């Protein structure tokens, strides 16, 4: 459910920042005998406060300088083979249930979920979800953006998800995930997934997505894999449909990813190829574009982690789907950053980047404090 708060933005930010600071400074009560986590129910909070400053070369650059405070709340419950998971993101102006899943352990290595989940064909989001503290960089790659950030690929699906893993060789592993359900609709210029509590307008069509990964050490960090997805997006915005010349967009996604950790180095590389089939009674047409990124991180003494990321696209500037769906989609971005884990479970991150969108280019600097509780 989305709540609109009738408070001035500055006051809201101050209140949320204060709340985040209080959460960060005051540890939860823990008995001398045992920690109250890890039982049948468990919860985590991922608060973060972020300031962004942009210097643009054109007026069409994205939103001006701003500050943002969010708290991602994760709750899980296990009872025998039953599992429940809820992830809620609280920002200054909205509260949104991002994931709500009920699961059953079919076997030792297989979980069947029903509910709203993150589609498994995203290499980044299935790893970090909304937990800001667990991703080294402040920003996520543009092609991995959530729907409400102008993301091009549907990320929240309502339906069924199965996750399974098995052994291969003496130490390796294979991990599979597949999801099927209702895709977002395209309305008022952005993708709208099925909401958990808010009233849905309907018109959602089918989505399926899958991921297969090879893990050289099945309990390690490295993985190499392929993703496949097809999302049938209903264009419910009449103005957009008229301008777009399409009442339906089918997105076929195929991608590959690699994630490696060697000594103090960590590398993640991902590439997606997207075929967009725009259909209408008048002039259906097909187009395609690609998007990828490479992020490199290095752990240094004093808990410092410098990182760099390059994002690039192919043919995206010529795609009418990209142009109509997200004018702020970035064709290219280069960034450098430094994360400092200054104490246990707390990090300060500085990130500077240069981005080129369909309309303009701009520089930005971000500073973020993120942490996890308890």
């Amino acid at each position: 459910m989305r709540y609109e708060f009738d408070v001035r933005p500055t006051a809201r930010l101050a209140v949320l920042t204060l709340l985040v600071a209080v959460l960060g400074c005051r540890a939860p009560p823990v008995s001398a005998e045992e920690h109250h986590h890890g039982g049948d129910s468990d919860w985590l909070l991922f608060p973060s406060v972020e300031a962004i400053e942009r210097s643009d070369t054109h007026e069409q650059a994205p939103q001006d300088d701003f500050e943002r405070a969010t708290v991602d709340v994760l709750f899980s419950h296990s009872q025998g083979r039953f599992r429940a998971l809820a992830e809620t993101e609280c920002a200054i102006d909205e509260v949104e249930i991002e994931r709500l899943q009920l699961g059953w352990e079919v076997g030792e290595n297989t979980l069947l979920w029903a509910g709203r989940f993150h589609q498994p064909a995203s290499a980044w989001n299935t790893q970090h979800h909304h937990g800001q503290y667990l991703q080294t960089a402040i920003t996520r790659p543009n092609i991995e953006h959530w729907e409400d950030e102008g993301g091009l690929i549907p990320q929240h699906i309502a339906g069924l998800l199965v996750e399974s893993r098995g052994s291969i060789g003496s130490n390796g592993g294979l991990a599979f995930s597949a999801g099927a359900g209702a895709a977002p609709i395209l309305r008022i210029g952005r993708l709208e997934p099925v909401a958990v509590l808010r009233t849905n307008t309907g018109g959602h069509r089918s989505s399926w997505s899958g991921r297969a990964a090879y893990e050289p050490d099945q309990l390690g960090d490295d993985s190499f894999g392929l993703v496949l997805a097809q999302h049938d997006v209903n264009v419910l915005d009449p103005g957009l449909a008229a301008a777009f010349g399409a009442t339906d967009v089918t997105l076929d996604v195929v991608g590959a990813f690699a994630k490696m950790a060697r000594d103090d180095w960590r590398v993640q590389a991902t590439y997606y190829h997207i075929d967009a089939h725009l259909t209408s009674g008048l002039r259906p047409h097909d187009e395609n574009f690609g998007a990828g990124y490479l992020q490199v991180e290095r752990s240094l003494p004093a808990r410092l982690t410098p990182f760099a990321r390059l994002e690039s696209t192919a043919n995206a500037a010529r795609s009418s789907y990209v142009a109509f769906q997200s004018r702020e989609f970035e064709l290219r971005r280069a960034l450098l950053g430094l994360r400092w884990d200054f104490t246990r479970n707390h990090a300060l991150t500085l990130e500077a980047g240069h981005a080129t969108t369909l309309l303009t280019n701009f520089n930005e600097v971000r500073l973020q404090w993120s942490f996890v509780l308890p």
Partner: protein
Amino acid sequence: MRWSAALLCALLLLGAAPSVAADRSMVLIVSADSPVTHLDAIEVRKLYLGLSVIRAGLSLRALDNRSDDKLHQAFLQNVVAMPESVYERRLLSIMLQQGARRPQAFETATALLAAVAADPSAVSVAWATEVVQDRRIRVLRVLWRD
């Protein structure tokens, strides 16, 4: 006579102390009522990384023994094979990804052993000397020897 007896006791203690220290072993334990008879190293690691291991229809639960710093260090090196900061981050990730439960942590051996004894699905580690005479607890195997 009294001095010689005291000297003998001191010598015995001096002689016994190194052998106790040398025999200090970290063992894998379950409840005496547990159906679990064997867990290999990768299964124990899976459990402590929040992944599922099922035996006799029971979804096993790892309990984190934080009663002794040396035991915890031995656990990090020999069971999960990663530094504490990396281990904590992996647990957060697996909970975020799959809603997996993190191992419940206990600060005293008494509380930990009581929890293991009461739950046939519980698995933990302990010093062998702490459980050798505890009839409520069964040792599955030695994980590490000092």
